């Protein structure tokens, strides 16, 4: 049976890389006696994958892992077993059975939702500048960013505005600012929120270049034919 598990990555878990998280899950599954199916061939590997690797240093409330087990187990059973085997910082949110076992998550995901936060902008002036930068970003029709192509090494310009579905200031208090964005995520079109931060900093002017931002992934989505966002955990 194939399962989709939603989990979070908080606290110092943000420093654990994609590959190390894979091993962490593999060992947690082993400890809880959930036997994975293995691929055939010369060097078999467990059928398990994490959708859309998260950048090192980001936290998340919407990570997904899918895997196939040798025997059928109730989704709640898997949820319960894994929940008890995770280190501090990783919480298991949900588990569902995936009926469509052919499609991989990476191919389904099209959008990702992120919170870009800053708790260092202490003065009202800084907060205001940040809000204005976000508004300016939103108002633009095109935002071109130079990008070096991996294969050819050629420099091209990419319009990142087209990859941002929405950008809103969610909170702007004296303590912190939170900006929520929904951006292209997946194998077709992808935007690293880091590029948004680069632009925001640019719009805020030189004085605020040193501000540190924190990024948290909130959710990942696939889209219906009408373009509605469907959070991944609803699949299955």
């Amino acid at each position: 049976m194939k399962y989709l598990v939603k989990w979070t990555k908080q606290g110092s878990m943000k420093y654990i890389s994609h590959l190390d998280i894979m091993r962490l899950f593999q060992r947690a599954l082993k400890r809880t006696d959930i036997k994975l199916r293995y691929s055939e061939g010369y060097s078999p590997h467990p059928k398990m994958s994490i959708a859309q690797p998260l950048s090192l240093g980001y936290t998340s409330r919407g990570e997904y892992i899918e895997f196939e087990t040798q025997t059928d187990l109730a989704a709640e059973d898997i949820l319960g077993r894994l929940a008890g085997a995770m280190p501090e910082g990783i919480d298991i949110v949900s588990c569902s059975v995936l009926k469509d076992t052919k499609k991989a998550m990476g191919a389904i995901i099209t959008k990702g939702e992120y919170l870009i936060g800053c708790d260092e902008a202490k003065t009202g002036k800084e907060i205001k500048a940040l809000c204005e930068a976000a508004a300016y970003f939103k108002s633009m029709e095109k935002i071109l960013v130079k990008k070096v192509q991996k294969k050819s090494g050629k420099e091209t310009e990419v319009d990142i505005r087209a990859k941002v579905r929405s950008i809103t200031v969610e909170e702007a208090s004296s303590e912190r600012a939170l900006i929520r964005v929904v951006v292209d995520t997946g194998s077709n079109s992808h935007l690293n929120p880091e590029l948004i931060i680069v632009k925001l900093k640019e719009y805020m002017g030189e004085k605020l270049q040193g501000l540190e931002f924190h990024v948290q992934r909130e959710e990942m989505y696939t889209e219906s034919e009408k373009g509605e966002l469907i959070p991944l955990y609803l699949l299955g």
Partner: protein
Amino acid sequence: MFEIKSEIQKKIEKNVMRVEKPARYIGGELHSIKKDPEQVKMRVAFGFPDLYEIGMSNLGLQILYKVLNDIPDVQCERVYSPDVDFEGIMREEEIPLYTMETKTPVIDADIFAITVQYEMLATNVLNMIDLAGMEIFAKDRKESDPFVIMGGPCTYNPEPLAEVADAFSIGEGEEVWVEIMDKFREWKESGKEKIEFLKDLCEIDGMYVPSFYEFDYNEDGTIKEIRKTYDKAPDLIMKRIVQDLDSAPYPTEPVVPFISTVHDRAVVEIFRGCTRGCRFCQAGMIYRPVRERSKDKIKEIVKKQLEATGYEELSILSLSTGDYSQVEELVTELMQLCRESDVSMSLPSLRLDSFSFKVMDEIQGYKKSGLTFAPEAGTQRLRNIINKDISDEEIYSAARQAFELGWNSIKLYFMVGLPGETDEDLAGIAQIARNIVDIYKEQHGGKTGRLNVTVSVSNFVPKPHTPFQWFPQNTDAEFSRKHQFIKELIKPMKCVRLNYHDSATSYLEGVLARGDRRLNKAIAEALRLGCKFDGWGEHFDFQKWLQAFDNTGIDPEFYARRAWGYDEILPWDLIGTSVEKEFYLEENKKAAAGEITKDCREGCNACGVNKVFRC
């Protein structure tokens, strides 16, 4: 998304993304232990003076972590050496050396324990103390600073670090650490001065407080006399051992790292000690007597460990697996256990017999990685001198079997610079490689095909507490000539590769191994000049070390390259391993005569161990 953090945590957070492998510095691993602060009366920071990946692979630290945390009012936390990139940031941002579990400064702990696993860590030991914000020399430290207590195999000669440590724990730590904490609890409640705790420590067997001993020297630099300055300090510090391994604490829930480490797997120690008595081998002497863990206990540990960790690999640990009394039953049953739980197995140091081949064939299957033999010397004559019990015929028949079973990669370990060595012995190294190539050709229609022979040559470093402890180490020039000599002979063989160790590193290792108290200042000076991670080729700076010796008036040749007098007082004479000095002298004589000493399972060789411990 935003959490409440301590000052240190904030600084770590802010900077750790700038360094390689941030996960080295964050803790929080599975089975790491954080206690309720209300419950904790004594805090031990346990330091491993090397990178996280190395330190996390060390079983000793995992054992003592468990032993200490099993004491209800003790919290033991781990500390590793930061890599140079993070150290730079720590110094710049004023982040003191901190513990992995609670991210509190080491200087706030009660005891800073440091395990010294090999000589080349000396500067790292000092650097940890410096990074913690303490003075390097014990005499300069404050009443409020933690006690620095060192242990580990390298402290069987504690003198090169004797002015840095407040105390040493000699030998195995399982029992002694409980006793140390009992004494500490009493002392802490008494509110007395630090010196009083050091005196208390003298009542515990195996504890060495170096400040209670003074060394006087002769004009020629040798030791004239060792004087006690506290009359209740012991005359001889006999190492501690755990007599019964089955009842000894063992980490069935070891800390499981997030990032991959050197030995990222479950590990079970099957016995301690070795009966073979190779004369160059310090481990073979200092870990006596042989104590086996029972097969049932081993299996119980393995089951628990695999359940608790989810590791995908199991390794067994000892000085020579093949010598375990029920090795065939044990290996067969462990393999069964591993098969059932989808775990792969790695079996180091098996004997070259048919059972081993059967097992290795089964374990490695299609992916045969490589087989390793350690003849150590190129001729039977020299192998007799060093008492390494392996014959040419054994090597060749093993190679023959290995090739038949489909292996085509063989590694051979040798040493150069051994006592009594001649060029004939060096030629013998190349000859063994040549004969192995010929065996392969014979079986493969005269072709070398996919054959891959690696000859690995290390430089012999005479170690304390061995029959060769008086022997002058070869000079760099001698080592280099020998490397070249072997290289020329091996060059014509296309499928044979030669590796050899850096001579300067071996020289420094030799100096530190047999160093005395005067070396403390040289090590501190080397650190001041920027030496650290000396065991890592990319960091080792021999010129700086020479400068450090020069600045402190130390002649390194005196330690490494001198023929020590058999009647000399040795810097490590205060430390007892239970093997008697007379035995080393006797063995030394037998070596010179080319006489072997049999494995002591075939009859007692009267090394002295059974006068102190149960064999």
